[in-house]
């Protein structure tokens, strides 16, 4: 069998979303997928602890969300598209979220782009 992911090799600064990561992030991902509905988003905004308890998030996972620690949410198994959903609750868009993962300010990040107006 050709292993498509080359076991033992890794891509720098990359956390491939495989079944191991998906298992680790199941609570985070279930919560985020539940946010695909306006009523659920309102419920989450009004009582985040209650919703995080309902999805059985660990104390560490809750802290990552409340701290808006997007990079470590990814490392904890949050799929990036689900992390984007959670960030949107805090009015954080994809590019600021990305800048934070890079350890840059949003403005610094935009300077690295070809056409920074295309947001």
């Amino acid at each position, binding site marked *: 069998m050709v*292993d498509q*992911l080359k076991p033992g090799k890794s891509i720098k600064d990359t956390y*491939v979303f495989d*079944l191991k990561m998906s298992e680790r992030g199941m609570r985070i991902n279930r919560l985020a997928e539940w946010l*695909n509905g306006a009523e659920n988003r309102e419920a989450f905004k009004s009582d985040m602890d209650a919703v995080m308890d309902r999805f059985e998030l660990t104390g560490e996972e809750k802290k990552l969300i409340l701290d808006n620690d997007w*990079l470590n949410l*990814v490392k904890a198994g949050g799929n990036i598209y689900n992390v984007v959903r959670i960030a949107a609750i805090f009015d954080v868009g994809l590019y600021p979220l990305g*800048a934070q993962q890079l350890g840059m300010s949003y403005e610094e990040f935009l300077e690295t782009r070809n056409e920074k107006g295309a947001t």
Partner: protein
Amino acid sequence: MAMIVAGIGTSHVPSIGAVVDSGRQNTPEWKPLFDAYEPVRTWLSDERKVDAVIVIYNDHACDFSFSKYPTFAVGAASEYAIADEGFGVRPLPPVKGDLDLSAHICRHLVYEEEFDITICKEMAVEHGLLVPMDLCFPQQGEWPVKVIPVQVNVLQHPIPTALRCFKLGAALRRAVESYDRDVNVAVMGTGGMSHQLHGERFGHLNSDFDNWFLDKIESDPQAICGMTHFDLMEQAGAEAVELIMWLTMRGAMTPDAQRIHRNYYAPMTTGMGLITMQDAA
């Protein structure tokens, strides 16, 4: 008899949908992208006279969940709702399906091709499908063509191999060509191009790779079929592995199909590519 009249490879970057909804297509930042699609739209509607489009796309944990995430899923409904992806529902009419053609494709794939797909009687569609529709078949109160959605898992590994995606395209072609009604069908492979959205490698772009890919999808798709997911992700970014969905389009076209349009624009974090093809006369 039904025919494949066009193949399209296109990015499905979600910010394009937001630009359409806010009418910003002619701003200096976006005009280079939208201008490239104008001749494509005319070609598809007036010359190729497309009636229905098979859209190969991935659901971004929106209508499907990672708890149950089909490797290949085909829609078999007369209508597909617009999904809420976590940010509200876009102001778009529901997508129209072609139930009879979908049902034929499902039967053909399962009985003749050993592609045991998940068949969806209900499917809400999201940017993976809608952005390519915005670009190639824009709605004006209703969508101008019917849609057969084909969803591929390109997010939760193990995902199908590049070669398997190509073979799905060949199987779809045989499905269309064995359908006894006169329908002009386009096949659209969506996603990419280079981009990575997660980790400290956020913003990784590789325009050299993207242009190589545009060359090869036209002239030598087997070069891409031979790549592992690791190779694709290393070159083009982890989220760019979705480019394997372009191979499904290419597999549905003849080996000597001709390229008609090509464009590339990489303003922010994702290489936005476009290619169209038609079978040689």
